[in-house]
């Protein structure tokens, strides 16, 4: 029992007098990737609980949702990573590690694409909703470098999902996308977000959500192959409609206002 407790408190080294995480002594040594912060299981548990509470208390703390995802997802991320390895396109993504940010996107090229293409629609989504792909926080608390990339990719792909599903970035749209992601990835953070997100909705929105949007999102989530396996950067020219057909995503019920 004492050893179990000790192992929970001290992650790597077993020196009782210096229980700080072993890595992170001097700049860069022992860190698996830049921005990595090694944490003990106790710290991860506290972070998970604290971030969940804070995210509910203050929904504008997006960083808390990111922390929740990192601290609760270790098992699920492994499953996702293995699934990506089995798929040819997914394996390529894992190998090449593309990142989606304003510096890597060629906005001029996307602008020049024909209307209705995936790239053009994605750009329109960014403009209309006034979001940028650079607001995603870097991964910090995942203790495996490949899994850290997987969760980073998941975050960066989130905006693509908005485009594919045609959902805006208001709270209703975000909840619908969360349900889709929960069914697809089974990350605990998505499941929690999907279940607790609606807590702050009005009765009317809640009704629309439960009666039409959630069943639609769940159905599409089940039908579509894993969205992390798509090499989006190579599919900018593909017409959005064709991409939707390929994934089996049907048109959303028209009630959701706002554009995607």
């Amino acid at each position, binding site marked *: 029992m004492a050893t179990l407790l000790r192992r929970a408190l001290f992650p790597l080294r077993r020196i009782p007098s210096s229980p700080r995480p072993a890595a992170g002594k001097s700049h860069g040594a022992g860190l698996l990737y830049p921005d990595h912060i090694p944490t003990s299981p106790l710290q991860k548990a506290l972070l998970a609980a604290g*971030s969940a509470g804070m995210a509910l208390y203050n929904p504008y703390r997006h960083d808390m949702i990111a922390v929740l995802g990192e601290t609760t997802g270790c098992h699920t991320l492994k499953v996702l990573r293995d699934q990506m390895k089995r798929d040819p396109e997914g394996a390529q993504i894992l190998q090449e590690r593309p990142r989606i940010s304003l510096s890597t996107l060629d906005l001029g090229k996307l602008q020049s694409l024909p209307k209705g293409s995936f790239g053009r629609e994605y750009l329109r989504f960014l403009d209309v909703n006034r979001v940028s792909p650079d607001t995603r926080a870097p991964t910090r608390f995942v203790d495996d470098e490949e899994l850290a990339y997987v969760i980073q990719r998941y975050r960066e792909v989130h905006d693509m999902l908005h485009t594919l599903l045609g959902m805006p970035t208001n709270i209703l749209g975000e909840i619908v996308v969360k349900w889709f992601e929960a069914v697809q990835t089974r990350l605990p953070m998505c499941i929690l977000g999907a279940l607790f997100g609606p807590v702050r909705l009005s009765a009317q929105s809640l009704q629309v959500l439960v009666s039409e949007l959630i069943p639609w999102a769940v159905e599409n989530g089940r039908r579509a192959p894993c969205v992390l396996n798509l090499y989006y950067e190579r599919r900018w020219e593909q017409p959005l409609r064709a991409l939707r057909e390929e994934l089996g995503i049907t048109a959303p019920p028209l009630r959701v206002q706002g554009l995607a």
Partner: protein
Amino acid sequence: MAAPRTCGLWSYCGRGLSRAKRNCGLPGLRSSWPWGPLGARLLSQEKRATETHFGFETVSEEEKGGKVYQVFESVAKKYDVMNDMMSLGIHRVWKDLLLRKMHPLPGTQLLDVAGGTGDIAFRFLNYVQAQHQGKQKKQLRAQQNLSWEEIAKKYQNEEDSLGGSLVMVCDINREMLKVGKQKAFDRGYKAGLAWVLGDAEELPFDDDKFDVYTIAFGIRNVTHIDRALQEAHRVLKPGGRFLCLEFSQVNNPLISSFQVIPVLGEVVAGDWKSYQYLVESIRKFPSQEAFKEMIEDAGFQKVTYESLTSGIVAIHSGFKL
């Protein structure tokens, strides 16, 4: 005889040497210093002293100042909230105990270094005001047979409710001072308070100016603690008191709390790294006895310390005699 002469030279040039060290930045000048053994010692100390610690990280000395500045710049707005969370509000008790130990009387000139958000300064003002009022009440009670004119004059002379006390809050960080000034304004503190931007290793004050020098939870962030102690010695009047409230080595290592603090920092303030630095810098700080010796080295006498809350913090006290 050679020995006593060098001893005399040593004690004479001790203070002058430290000032010379500050003023001349050229190592060449130091090596040509007439006192041989002193010069050699300085050079070797200089070589060893180019690196220092920032928490558990090893950084150069120039870097440490900048990094510490960034930490406090980012935590300034949530500093008080985080103090409450991390110490469960007990930090207020520690600061109250510091004031009680100080027991300042009206007329005291206090220098509070690294006192950014003003906790010690405000407590000091409350304390001397209460003391001054108590004294005045006693005076009035003792003088029973006053004429109406004399009583009226006493009420008119109520300008200085502090009895001439003054606290100078000095901090190297602009953000912390801003937060402190705002707090003072919100709580209505005006008289007897001054805010100065300054470095504890090189204070912008003349010699022999203050009655009391305090530094609460600040000295572990200073790059050269010995210089800060020497500066403290310089600006105090003879008979002046040095008081330091700082984290110390615990008797029962509270392992969990050091793990919890960065987590709290992340959840409440969105800032893991600053609180990780805090935890590491506490670990790196010398023990009660070692710090006592450092204070004695700076020239203070009658140095004592008192551990609070089983050693989590300690108040060190010394006198300039």
